[in-house]
């Protein structure tokens, strides 16, 4: 049976009502139960922050949080109608991470005595609302993910444009050295690169499904591995050049690493050729090494990473001060943390965005970090599950790509804070303060929900 006829079979008026009758919405009920727990955790976190840092309960943020809970439940209701068989874990995980993030941002607002629109937590809550609304819109508009396949190249173009938008004079804004923001006048700033990662994931998936055959062609054998033909090196070189230009012009190592890693993994999945990974890694490592020799800021990142506690490096401008303060914060947290509102995360620079994981580690301890990492891992695993169970290669690639981008982003930023790799600026998905990141990650949630629904809905085809 072909895919088209399967689609038709599902759409027939006979099968549709029958399925509805026989399958109670078990998955959605489970999701609702988990969502209620997530909302309870989020509300407790905010209240505990207030008790810990203020010693009293202030209802403003609790009310804002309740508003968010209503929106999330709204998203859940939408799922009951348009994606009733989607994965029940993704939404609760995103909700609880988002909520914990807001609680920590709020905690730092209290330390900095910011309130009203000054307060990053209020802005974060508003952005969360926008992000959840965009997720609802995506779910309502994209009823079938294969629509995205049709617009593969448009997404590719969109991705590149978004990526380089901050380089346009007048529009781009430079924040702490990296030119990855856009702003309108003094108006809200946005990181278009965050949205670009979704567009690029869609593009990579579509492009690779279309061209996998030629990319899988084997060329010469060298050092025990079969390498691709020279003429097929085009795409990887283009993406490599793209990443390098991000490093050079936008001064943003993290984003470059994220895009290149994403492409490499999707390329490997599509072609099954390990040689691509070898070529890709050597290209990137070579580029990074060259950059570390020629670009001061990259070199500095490496020095800070390798020799963070050295007093000279610590004192230097752009040195390891932030990194070491983050470590001090984590150390202060120890195994169980100081408790919400009881630590001093505000000592570390930007404790609410790049360093939110250190702030959380300080107040929630190693136990809290483990819980957060477990949530991320579960989130990513659900994405990979779609990949395993999916029927069409585009959907599989897209699901794994989106899940992997979240995993890689966690690794780059948390690994940077804890000195696994050199520190590069990226947002921690769902947790860190930043509107564009929230919108992007909630769109990923919507796409994964859509994909997981499709996977379960499709009758098993002959494999």
């Amino acid at each position, binding site marked *: 049976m072909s895919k088209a006829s399967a689609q038709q079979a599902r759409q027939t008026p006979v099968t549709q009502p029958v399925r509805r009758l026989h399958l109670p919405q078990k998955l959605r009920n489970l999701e609702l139960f988990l969502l209620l727990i997530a909302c309870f955790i989020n509300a407790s976190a905010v209240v505990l922050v207030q008790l810990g840092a203020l010693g009293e309960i202030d209802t403003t943020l609790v009310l804002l949080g309740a508003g968010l809970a209503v929106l999330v439940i709204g998203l859940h209701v939408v799922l009951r109608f348009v994606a009733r068989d989607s994965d029940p874990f993704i939404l609760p995980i995103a909700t609880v991470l988002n909520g914990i993030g807001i609680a920590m941002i709020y905690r730092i607002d209290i*330390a900095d005595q910011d309130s009203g629109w000054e307060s990053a937590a209020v802005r974060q809550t508003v952005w969360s609302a926008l992000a959840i609304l965009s997720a609802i819109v995506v779910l309502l508009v994209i009823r079938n993910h294969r629509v995205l396949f049709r617009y593969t190249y448009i997404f590719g173009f969109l991705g590149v444009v978004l990526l380089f938008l901050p380089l346009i004079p007048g529009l781009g804004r430079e924040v702490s050295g990296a030119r990855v923001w856009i702003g309108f006048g003094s108006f809200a700033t946005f990181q278009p690169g965050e949205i670009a990662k979704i567009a690029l994931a869609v593009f990579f998936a579509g492009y690779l499904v279309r061209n996998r055959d030629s990319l899988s062609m084997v060329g010469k054998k060298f050092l025990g591995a079969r390498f691709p033909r020279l003429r097929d090196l085009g795409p990887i070189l283009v993406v490599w050049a793209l990443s390098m230009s991000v490093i050079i012009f936008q001064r943003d190592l993290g984003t470059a690493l994220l895009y290149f890693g994403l492409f490499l993994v999707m390329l490997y999945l599509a072609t099954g050729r390990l040689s691509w990974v070898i070529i890709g890694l050597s290209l990137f490592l070579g580029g990074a090494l060259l950059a570390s020799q020629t670009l001061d800021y990259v070199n500095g990142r490496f020095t800070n990473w390798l020799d963070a506690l050295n007093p000279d490096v610590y004192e230097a401008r752009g040195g390891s001060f932030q990194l070491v303060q983050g470590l001090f914060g*984590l*150390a202060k947290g120890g195994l169980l943390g100081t408790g919400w509102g009881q630590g001093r995360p505000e000592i570390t620079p930007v404790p609410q965005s790049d360093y939110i994981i250190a702030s959380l580690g300080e107040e929630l301890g190693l136990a809290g970090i483990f819980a957060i990492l477990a949530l991320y891992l579960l989130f990513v695993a659900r994405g990979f599950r779609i990949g395993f169970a999916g029927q069409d290669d585009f959907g599989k*690639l897209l699901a794994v790509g989106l899940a992997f981008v979240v995993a890689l982003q966690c690794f780059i930023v*948390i*690994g940077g804070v804890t000195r696994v790799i050199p520190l590069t600026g990226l947002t921690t998905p769902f947790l860190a303060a930043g509107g564009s990141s929230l919108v992007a990650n909630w769109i990923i949630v919507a796409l994964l929900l859509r994909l997981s629904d499709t996977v379960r809905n499709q009758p098993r085809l002959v494999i």
Partner: protein
Amino acid sequence: MNRELKRVSIVVLLMFIALLSSTSIVQAFQADNLSADPRNTRTLYDSYQVERGAILVAGEPIAQSLPADDDYKFLRTYTNPELYAPITGYIPINGEPTGLEFALNAEMTGTSNSQFFDKISALVTGQDPKGAAVEVTIDPVAQQAAWDALGDYTGSVVVTEPATGRILAMVSKPSFNLNLLTVHNNKEVTASYEALLADDNNPLINRAINSLNPPGSIFKLVVTTAALESGDYTPESTFPNPAVYTAPGTTSKIENSSGQPCGTGDTVTLATALRLSCNIPFAELGVKLGDTAIRETAEKFGFNKSYSIPMTVAESVYPNGLDDPQTAQSAFGQFDVQATPLQMAMVSAAIANGGVVMAPTLVQEILAPNLSAIQTFEPAEMGRVMSEKTAATLTGMMINGVQDGAASNARIDGVDVAGKTGTAQNGSTDPFTLWFTGFAPATDPQYAITVLIEDGGGMEQSGFGNLLAAPVAKAVLEAVLNK
């Protein structure tokens, strides 16, 4: 595709295992080391949570922790904060911690090793931890007199007890209100701190121990010590007395501050040269002694050495490897010679104390919460710089300088004051640095004093040590001697 997917899953799992391991290493295994790092301000701020011990001057608190109804529990409050800022220092919510608050943080928070058993007993009895109080060596009369006498000058006054090294007064101006930096409001503290940092007069600097200036003519005391100790010179040794001197190997000329020869006659004695503070005889003497001999003597006094009171004192400098012209300049405290007021107070104190330098300190006693002494002050010698005979000779020469010489404005009726003034150049156009150092009563030295006035005392290049610095010293000495 699923085979590849499985492999990628394993990679993702490894990535997360790496994160789990790295956070475990930082939070579990390295945590103690990271907490003990002196740069870890979190550990410092934790000390706000306990009742810090007070800092006491003659039994009266100048810094104490008063109960506060916020999450810090205690608010550090300073009495007479501007007067005592260089002594107490502060631990701000942000910014650099300084002074005794920083140097004795462990004792005042009850976390020093010597308080280990107190900690245990507090744990057993369920009492809140409490820190030890610190009684300082400061004499409130001397401190207040020094503060008043220095007036609006930018500078410092240090008074020590020659026989013990106890610091009786330590004033630095301009000063600042410590209480502005300890309020529990990040924004206010930051604003106050930034304003103080931006102030061109650097009120945050404790000039007594951290301001390095060319000592000028008061360094002649060190050179005279080196000369007398060498055995080749006496106060009656003579030197050629030209109006202009050119050191061997250079064409740059050295003059006396008068522009004239040093007194009348073709030659001048060492005693007269010191009394009238002439540069040329000292330049000649310096070249003959050589930089090594001068440096050795300077180092015996404490130059080129780091010591703490218990705050770390900036190292006063007598440079290495000088050629003859540079040595000639250094012999009257110019070229790259630099000194803190405390270091120059130690020079006078050593002469007053029969040639022995005592280790300077601010700490009289550290008292546990139950008022038992954890640590009591014991005078400690840093070493002998010169023989008693040399010290007596120098004292006589310094008395003459005040009685009948360049330091005449420090004269006090009925008391012999030994002293030396200095007027140091800072480049060709910058304002002078003005000094006085000495002690009184010269026959039975109780107080050694050094006055530093920076920035020409507001008189650019027309002020000089005897005009501005000596009267300050006189006022302080009168106040403490008439106590």
